[in-house]
Each structure stands twice: as structure tokens, then as C-alpha cells.
């Protein structure tokens, strides 16, 4: 492709203030665009516009949820915080589990990509959350997946479900991560908008915790892992077509798929490579490349650090020809990480990468000052205050309104339903219930996941909780469960979230573990719908208040809005993950009765 003849540099942007820019197509509102111009004191370059537009998206900036999520911080007491080594604001929450061990865990959604391309969408969802865990300095230990689909017999479920399950399994199995739990739920509101939430848990020695920041003037920025390609660029290809109108190849870019293809083998090798790098103590800071790719990695590292950053973008190894700076910055190519390394350690760093056959390239340096500057073949194409990109995006106080239909919905309770009378009807009801896709055995799904790999799985499907051993000597391990009942949440999002928390908490407790921390993946409809925002606000409050009652903190999570088909939003689905600790996994309590003759069955609670 020969299209890239003109580079929209910073100096060019300064002299051409009136060049029209496709900010709307990139998802920026009028006032957001105006604010970018105000921050920069000029119009943004194409590359800057690409960066701001992805980083200020709902997904990356949490612009509609931030005002509500604050409530987690406000309600977390010192006592709840005691064991928390990293919390909300980091790639993943980290808790101290004793004996010098720290555990990190986080959930993330990959809903829309999994609808478009079920296998790859789900696979790259697993890949992304695993990199989040690696970015904390941990070895990933296990994954869980929480799935929602339309009715089991709907034609589209037949397309989506097998692909999603194969993708979760295929990617996770290939990484050697046992799959130890999750959920599969069917409801018509998820037809056209399935939910694919993946959770990863990892462990490390507490002193090895790595945080994503670029500090130390003169330290090098190293990009390692896969090459950067055109996959997953999606909306940003609009830039090419807008600015080079009439150019055939540029117009072609407009149709780029926003789907990425995963390469689990590359990720597996990347994991082993990262662990060796951590072990040698030569990583100052590290960040995974997920949504928003290099835009996110560079601006977040720089923003969280104590200096500025200079990047030579033309050093990034590319998989496609003719990529523009904006495309390189927005590419969501998978299996990449970005590290900050002392100059004296660079050779050793590169040697470790070479051993694992992982491509690694020095692409920049930490500078003094407070700007993120990105050059392209000697011309500056980005010159921004990184905080304005990564952490000071727009914040919205969206209208919140309890839906009018809520009362009718609640009034229509189960009391009015007829009850089975007599043994025959009772039997019928029971048979119908156990045949229902939401209650039937999940072994069709779970048999496709490897829960044995690496030999540390102590409990997994069909147990209520996954239990994984961390330390073979002492038997120390963790228990983890995810839960959510969207129908309860629809009736009462506050209590629904608490029920999800309580269920997950109970599941962890019955395995014999002591719960220590909570994560979440909050899946909701459109943030622009006041009724949805009410559900969201209520769910956050319910969860936070529930956590106070139980005395364990929310250490992180993820928000996914705009899950709807036309005007129909999904059931509010705040998936809650609870993490527990066992001093010795040999004392785990397996699920099920009848292991020994003569057992006594007791019912606890009301």
C-alpha cells in the first residue's frame, strides 16, 4: 500500500487548525473534541485523535461508571484494606494471603467480539485477562468463565455457544491454565448479546508485585511479544479513508474487521518469558497491551510514572505494510506486552526474550518532563500530557431514574403462580426443572475444559468452587467462585447484587476457604438509558454495602455497558467473583453427599 504520503505531524496540525476531523465517527462527542483542542492548544493530529478517541471510550475511561464506582473506595474501611496490596486503579487487585504469598485476580468482558466471531472473541477474551494478571508480576494459575446466552434452542445460540466454549477452552487449555469454574446461563435478553466474562487468578511472592508505571529517567521502553498488525483496528480505519479520500487502498481500510485472532502459543511462551524476566528482577514496570493497544500502554505507563516518555513509533515491528501511526497506536493485535527496563538491564532482557523466541524491541525511553512524545520517522506525531489521555478523561453524571415499570414488575411475584398439587404434579415440576437448560448439568461445557493441567487443581467442576494449590510444600491455596442471577437483579438490582455476592461468598466458604476479596464484571445495557443507570447505581451500592457487611474489599473489576439488542437491554448482570484462602488445601471440603455410608444430613439457616 502506498497511501501514506502525508504524515499529520504536530507542526502540521499547528498550522492547519481548520482541517475537518472525523471525531464523531471515532465516537467522540462535540464537547469532548473541543476539550482535546483545549488541552493541546491546537487541533489534535490524526494519531492524537486516535489515541484520545480510544482512551476516552466508555470501555477504557469508565466515563459513565466512574462517579458510581467511587462508592467502592468510599465504603472500604481500613480494616477491609488491611490485606490489599493493590486495588482499584491497577491492572488487577492484589491481596496478601499469608506466608509471603500474594494473589491477584480480575474478570473482564469480551461480549461483543464473541458475538461477531465466537471462537476468536472468547479466545482473545481469555488471552487479555491472562495478560492483565501477568502485568502484576504473577504467574497465572487458573481461569473461570461466566457465560450468558440466548435461549438454548435459539438458532443463534447454536452458532455462538459452541464457538465461545471452544474458544475459552482452546485458548486456556493451550496456555496450561486449568479452568476451575464459571457459569452458563440462558435467557432471551442475551440473544444477540451474549456475555463472555473471563476471570483469571494468579500468584506471586508478595515482594515481586509489579505495578504499571514508567519511572526513572533514561529507562528504556521495550515492546515484546507479537508483531503489530491491522487486526482489531475497527473504527480507527475511518481516519485513513477520511484524510486520504479518493485513495483506493485507504478506502479499503474502512472495512477492516475489528476482530482479533488469538495465538495462544505465542501467549504461552510470553508467560514463561515474563516469569523469567520477573525472576531476574529486571523489570521496573510492565503493562499489557489489551484494548486500545499501544495508545493505552504508553499513556498509562507514562501517566502513572514520574516522568515523561519518548517513543519512536517506527521501531514497532509490523505485520502489515503501509500502516499509519494512528493505526499502529490503535491496533489491538494480541499477545504483546510493554516493559520499562533500566539501560544496564536491556541486554539481559533481550537475551531472555531471545531464549524464548519472543520478539522484543526497544521503542522508547523515559524522559524528564511530563509529556508523552511519539515520533514517526523523525517527525513528532503525538505530543500530549499523558494524564489527559489515560486518567483524566471525561466524566459523566448520566441521568439516573428508577424505571416506572419497576413496580409492576415487582408486583408480579411468584405468589400468583399455581403450586403443584399431589405427587404426580410435583414429579412433573421436578422433571421440568432438572431438564431446564439453566439447571441441567453443565458437563457438556465443562468436559471441554482441562481442569487437571499443572496438577494443582484440588476442586473444579462440578464443585461450587474452584480450589487451586499454590504452594506444594505447605498446601496453601485459593478458592474462587463467580455468581450472578440476572433475574433477581432485574427485580431489585441492589439486593440482586448482594445475592450474587452472598452466593459466591457461600460457595467459597463451603469449600473450606476463608473469603478475602471480591472482584466483579458489571454487564449492563446502555449507559444513556436512565433506567439502566439506575440499575447500575443500585447494583454498585448493593455490592459495596454487602462487602462492608462481610468485611472484605472489592479489589477491582470491569464495566461493560451497551449490552443490548435494539432497545432491549440484557438483564442487569453484575457477575461477582469471590476469592478465598485455604492454609492447606488438603482440608478442602468436596461438594456432594454420600461419600461415606451413614452420613447425617443437616440443613443450616432458615
Amino acid at each position, binding site marked *: 500500500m502506498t497511501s501514506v504520503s502525508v504524515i499529520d505531524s504536530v507542526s502540521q496540525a499547528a498550522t492547519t487548525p481548520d482541517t475537518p476531523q472525523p471525531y464523531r465517527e471515532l465516537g467522540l462527542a462535540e464537547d469532548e473534541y473541543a476539550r482535546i483542542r483545549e488541552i493541546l492548544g491546537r487541533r489534535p493530529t490524526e494519531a492524537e485523535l486516535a489515541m484520545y478517541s480510544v482512551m476516552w471510550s466508555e470501555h477504557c475511561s469508565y466515563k459513565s461508571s466512574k462517579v458510581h464506582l467511587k462508592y467502592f473506595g468510599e465504603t472500604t474501611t481500613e480494616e477491609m484494606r488491611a490485606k490489599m496490596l493493590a486495588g482499584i486503579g491497577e491492572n488487577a487487585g492484589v491481596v496478601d494471603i499469608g506466608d509471603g504469598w500474594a494473589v491477584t485476580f480480575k474478570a473482564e468482558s469480551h461480549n461483543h467480539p464473541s458475538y461477531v466471531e465466537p471462537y476468536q472473541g472468547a479466545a482473545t477474551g481469555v488471552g487479555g485477562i491472562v495478560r492483565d494478571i501477568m502485568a502484576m508480576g504473577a504467574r497465572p494459575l487458573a481461569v473461570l468463565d461466566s457465560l450468558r446466552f440466548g435461549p438454548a434452542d435459539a438458532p443463534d445460540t447454536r452458532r455462538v455457544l459452541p464457538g465461545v466454549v471452544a474458544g475459552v477452552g482452546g485458548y486456556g487449555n493451550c496456555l496450561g491454565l486449568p479452568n476451575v469454574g464459571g457459569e452458563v446461563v440462558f435467557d432471551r435478553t442475551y440473544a444477540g448479546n451474549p456475555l463472555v466474562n473471563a476471570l483469571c487468578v494468579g500468584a506471586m511472592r508478595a515482594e515481586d508485585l509489579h505495578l504499571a508505571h514508567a519511572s526513572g529517567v533514561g529507562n528504556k521502553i521495550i515492546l515484546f511479544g*507479537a508483531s503489530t498488525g491491522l487486526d482489531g483496528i475497527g473504527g480507527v480505519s475511518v481516519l485513513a479513508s477520511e484524510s486520504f479520500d479518493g485513495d483506493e487502498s485507504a478506502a479499503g481500510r474502512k472495512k477492516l474487521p475489528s476482530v482479533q485472532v488469538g495465538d495462544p502459543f505465542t501467549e504461552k511462551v510470553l508467560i514463561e518469558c515474563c516469569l523469567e524476566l520477573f525472576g531476574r528482577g529486571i523489570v521496573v514496570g510492565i503493562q499489557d497491551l489489551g484494548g486500545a493497544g499501544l495508545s493505552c500502554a504508553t499513556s498509562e505507563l507514562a501517566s502513572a510514572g514520574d516522568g515523561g516518555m519518548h517513543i519512536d513509533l517506527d521501531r514497532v515491528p509490523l505485520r502489515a505494510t503501509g500502516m499509519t501511526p494512528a493505526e499502529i497506536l490503535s491496533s489491538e493485535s494480541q499477545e504483546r506486552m510493554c516493559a520499562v527496563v533500566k539501560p544496564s538491564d536491556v541486554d539481559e532482557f533481550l537475551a531472555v526474550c531471545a531464549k524464548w523466541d519472543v520478539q522484543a524491541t526497544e521503542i522508547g525511553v523515559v524522559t524528564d518532563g511530563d509529556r508523552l512524545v511519539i515520533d514517526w520517522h523523525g517527525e513528532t506525531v503525538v505530543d500530549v500530557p499523558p494524564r489527559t489521555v489515560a486518567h483524566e478523561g471525561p466524566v459523566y453524571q448520566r441521568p439516573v431514574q428508577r424505571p416506572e415499570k419497576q413496580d409492576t414488575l415487582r408486583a408480579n411475584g411468584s405468589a400468583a403462580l399455581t403450586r403443584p398439587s399431589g405427587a404426580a404434579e410435583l414429579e412433573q415440576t421436578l422433571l421440568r426443572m432438572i431438564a431446564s437448560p439453566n439447571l441441567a448439568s453443565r458437563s457438556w461445557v465443562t468436559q471441554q475444559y482441562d481442569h487437571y493441567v499443572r496438577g494443582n487443581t484440588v476442586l473444579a467442576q462440578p464443585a461450587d468452587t474452584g480450589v487451586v494449590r499454590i504452594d506444594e510444600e505447605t498446601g496453601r491455596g485459593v478458592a474462587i467462585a463467580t455468581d450472578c442471577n440476572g433475574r433477581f437483579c432485574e427485580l431489585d438490582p441492589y439486593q440482586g447484587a448482594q445475592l450474587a455476592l452472598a452466593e459466591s461468598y457461600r460457595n467459597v466458604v463451603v469449600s473450606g476457604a476463608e473469603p478475602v476479596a471480591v472482584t466483579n464484571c458489571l454487564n449492563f445495557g446502555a449507559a444513556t438509558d436512565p433506567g439502566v443507570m439506575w440499575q447500575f447505581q443500585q447494583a454498585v451500592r448493593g455490592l459495596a454495602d454487602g462487602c462492608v457487611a462481610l468485611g472484605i474489599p472489592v479489589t477491582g473489576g470491569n464495566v461493560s455497558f451497551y449490552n443490548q439488542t435494539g432497545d432491549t437491554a440484557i438483564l442487569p448482570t453484575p457477575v461477582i467473583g469471590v476469592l478465598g484462602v485455604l492454609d492447606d488445601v488438603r482440608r478442602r471440603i468436596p461438594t456432594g453427599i454420600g461419600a461415606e455410608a451413614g452420613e447425617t444430613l443437616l440443613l443450616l439457616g432458615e
Partner: protein
Amino acid sequence: MARVVVDVMPKPEILDPQGKAVAGALPRLGFTGVTEVRQGKRFELEVDDSVDDATLAKIAESFLANPVIEDWSVRRVEP
């Protein structure tokens, strides 16, 4: 009766990990000079004469390939 071949290949801009792995392995096996490899699928179908080209295209597009990430082509061959 006719024999039909449907080729399904990953789109050029899409990562092809399998092709990459094959290309990476060849030099290690002592084969040099292969600069790129892409790996796709080949389907061989036996079809009744009632099946027209439009139907074959639809089968390829809606079922054998995922057009989001794959290109496809259909051709009838001598049996």
C-alpha cells in the same frame, strides 16, 4: 453429480498463527527459501446437479467460512 472445491483462507490482514508456525519451522527442518506460509481449509463436496452456484456461494459464505476473518472461493472441478 459434481465435485466442488471450496477454499477458505484467512484474510491477508488477519493474523495466521498456524501459517506463521509452519513458516518458522521450515528453516529449522533445513528447508530454506519459503518466505511466507498461510494455512487455510479445503473442502471437497459432492453435490447433486440441482445445486446451483448461488447456493454453493451461500454455503461457503454463511457456513464454511466466517467472512469476518476469512476469504473463500468456490469452483467446480472434474470429478
